[in-house]
C-alpha cells in the first residue's frame, strides 16, 4: 500500500513568528539616553561650579 504521508491539515497550525531584530532600534534608544544623561549632568555641573 502506497504511503502517501498525507497529514491532516489544520487551519489552526501555529504560525511561528520570527523575533524582529531590534538591535539597531536599541542602539538608537541608547543614543537618546546618552544625550539626556549627558546634558542633564553637564547642566548640573554648571550649577555646582558657579
Amino acid at each position, binding site marked *: 500500500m502506497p504511503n502517501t504521508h498525507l497529514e491532516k491539515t489544520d487551519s489552526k497550525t501555529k504560525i511561528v513568528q520570527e523575533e524582529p531584530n*531590534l*538591535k539597531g532600534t*536599541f542602539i538608537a*534608544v541608547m543614543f537618546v*539616553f546618552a544625550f*539626556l544623561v549627558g546634558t542633564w549632568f553637564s547642566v548640573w555641573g554648571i*550649577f555646582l561650579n*558657579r
Partner: protein
Amino acid sequence: MHMHRLEKLWMFIGGGTLLFFLIVLGIGAFIQGAQPPSCLTVIDPQRVEAHDPFKEENLGLQEVEGGDLDYVVNVVASAFNYDFGKDEEGNVVRKIRIPAGSKVMFQGTTKDVVHGFQVAGTNANMMLEPGYINQVEVTLDNPGVYTIVCNEYCGTGHQFMTAQVEVYEE
C-alpha cells in the same frame, strides 16, 4: 503579552529615568527645603518701604551677624532701575562688592511690573513680581564682576535695567 527583550530593557531605562527625576525633585523639596518663590509672603507694591528690608536705609548690601548667611542684599526694582540705596557719600549704588566665598541672600520686590533679577554667571536668578517678595541664596566663590540683568521684558527701557556685583578676593 510577549515583549522583545530589548524593548523591555529600554522601557526599564525610561521608567528608571522618570524615577530618578522624581527622587531628585523629592530631595529638593523635602530635604533641601526648596519652596515656591515668596511662598505666600505678600507686600503692598505701592508701599514697599513699609516693609523693613525695603526701607531706604536697609537697601543694598547688609552684613548679617551670626547665622549661616554672611550678607543680605535688598533690592527694590522698578521700571527701569534696581534700587540698592545709597553709599556713605550719598551716591546711588550701582555696584555691590562682596568678598569671595560669602553666602549671600538676594531679596527683592518690585513697585510696578514684573522684573527679572539675574546675576548673570551665578545661580542667582529670580523673578520679582508686584505684591511678592522673592529670595535666592547663593555662595559666591568665584571672583569677578557680574552683571545683574532684568530678564523679564518690562517696558521700553528694559535693556538699560542693569547693575553689577563684584566678587573680590579678600
